[in-house]
């Protein structure tokens, strides 16, 4: 069974006078325990697919299945226990007036867990945050620490599938390495399935085993990371992306 199956998904946004098609006929499948990367530039529609999956966007048609269950326009608590998302900007994904403890305890309360206290301690441990940071506010944490809190929040309901929206783009290079290692460790420990969105090919190549390349809302190519490493891209856009990831080349 696949963790995620998307078939001919179309997502659009209605503005005042016209419709903007953000995603057109997207089809992909992520096996259970797999790690899939969606690569593309801003406006390619990659983050929109994640938002449609999580129910944050409801103007779509096509078919989406998570753990075999077909998704409708609304989501329920059972869904939120199986799939969670880590957002891109650690500065925007934490409420400025809520401490780390508040964020985690609220999440646990919403999912009706008990022994909230000990769970919080375990979660902080899992993401490598010292308990000293438990009662701090976001403005007292660094970017990397905030992202760890965001990951802890996503892991609190014990989901098996994690959607990652550019998890390290807003972080410094040295912090990125820590967070990528953390994600690798967590995936192994909890047998998670990853669907990750990024514009950085090297990051995707590090964490994922398969990738789909998106341009202007369409998936133009799907391949394994191994193929990508050996520069076996067929679509010209993918080739262009691979070329620029190697650095600048003088004319």
């Amino acid at each position, binding site marked *: 069974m696949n963790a995620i199956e998307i078939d001919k998904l179309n997502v659009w946004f209605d503005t005042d006078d016209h419709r903007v098609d953000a995603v057109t006929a997207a089809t992909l499948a992520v096996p259970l325990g797999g790690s899939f990367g969606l690569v593309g530039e801003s406006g390619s529609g990659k983050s929109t697919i994640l938002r449609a999956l999580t129910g944050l966007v409801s103007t779509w048609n096509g078919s989406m299945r998570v753990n075999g269950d077909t998704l409708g326009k609304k989501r329920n608590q059972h869904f939120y226990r199986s799939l969670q*998302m880590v*957002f891109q900007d650690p500065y925007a994904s934490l409420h400025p007036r809520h401490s780390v403890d508040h964020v985690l305890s609220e999440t646990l309360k919403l999912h009706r867990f008990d022994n909230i206290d000990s769970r919080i301690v375990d979660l902080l441990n899992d993401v490598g945050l010292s308990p000293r940071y438990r009662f701090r506010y976001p403005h007292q944490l660094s970017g990397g620490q905030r992202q760890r809190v965001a990951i802890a929040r996503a892991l609190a309901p014990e989901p098996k599938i994690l959607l990652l929206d550019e998890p390290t783009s807003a972080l410094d290079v040295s912090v990125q390495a820590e967070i990528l290692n953390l994600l690798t460790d967590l995936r192994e420990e909890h047998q998670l399935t990853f669907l990750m969105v990024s514009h950085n090919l090297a990051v995707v190549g590090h964490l994922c085993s398969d990738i789909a390349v998106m341009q202007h809302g369409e998936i133009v190519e799907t391949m394994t990371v191994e193929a990508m490493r050996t520069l076996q891209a067929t679509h010209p856009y993918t080739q262009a992306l691979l070329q620029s990831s190697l650095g600048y080349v003088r004319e």
Partner: protein
Amino acid sequence: MTEITTSSIGWRAWLSTDTPSSRRQARLGSYYQGWLEFKSNRLAMIGLCILLLLLFTAAFAPWLAPHDPFVQNLGNRLTPMGTEGHLLGTDSLGRDLLSRIIYGSRITLYIVGLVALIAPVVGLLVGTVAGYVGGWADVVLMRITDIFLAFPRLVLALAFVAALGAGIENAILAISLTAWPPYARIARAETLSIRNSDFIAAVKLQGAGAARIITRHVWPLCITSLIVRITLDMAGIILAAAGLGFLGLGARPPSPEWGAMIAEGRKFILDFWWVATVPGIAIFMVSLAFNLVGDGLRDVLDPKTGGDS
């Protein structure tokens, strides 16, 4: 002596630690940081002192006032400032001005306190629901807001007086009914900008409903701009009450409401200027104090200017 100093260093350190070990410590610590920042603003502190003086005066009026504010002494009317026994002089009925000012501070606080409770709360409710829920609720609530915004305060007060009779409670009602719309607009604007944030999306993904999101996530972020706005509005509220008192629509005589006192003293302003001026200065000082405190609070609370407690 050493014990006192070590314990005072103790609580200061406890509040400024950057590794708080409980929710209470973290929250108190952030209030403390805010207080330190506020304290460094000299003008704001002056404003705060004046407000504290106002509170003190209102609380201890019976002990502070040298005379009964209602006792008339027609033989002693319109005595100038500095007369023996009457530091600020007497009004047209011989009543001691200083005592009336002191007792009038209670009325001022009563008006300001009630309006500050009613208007922002109503505005917050209307604005956040309109902003978050959107659609029809937004349209209906905002049009209602526009209707109330269109009423000039004094006209509405006149209508109330015509219907219900003059009095301070009616004045407060009239002022509150015209004061809440700006808060609704502020709250709605804040809600609209917060609504699409990632942290709201994140809590939705945990299954939070609209009620929880509005009360626990949107309100804490709106409250700071509302608090700042209230303190800046206080000046206007006091003046509105004074204006209504001046027109005879607010506190009824012989109540020592400052606005009414100015009205009474208007007839004598050329020869006995202090009767109207002294309450005017009191109004000015309290309004100024609220403005200064509001400015100081904004510097501390507004995340855009760096303060984040």
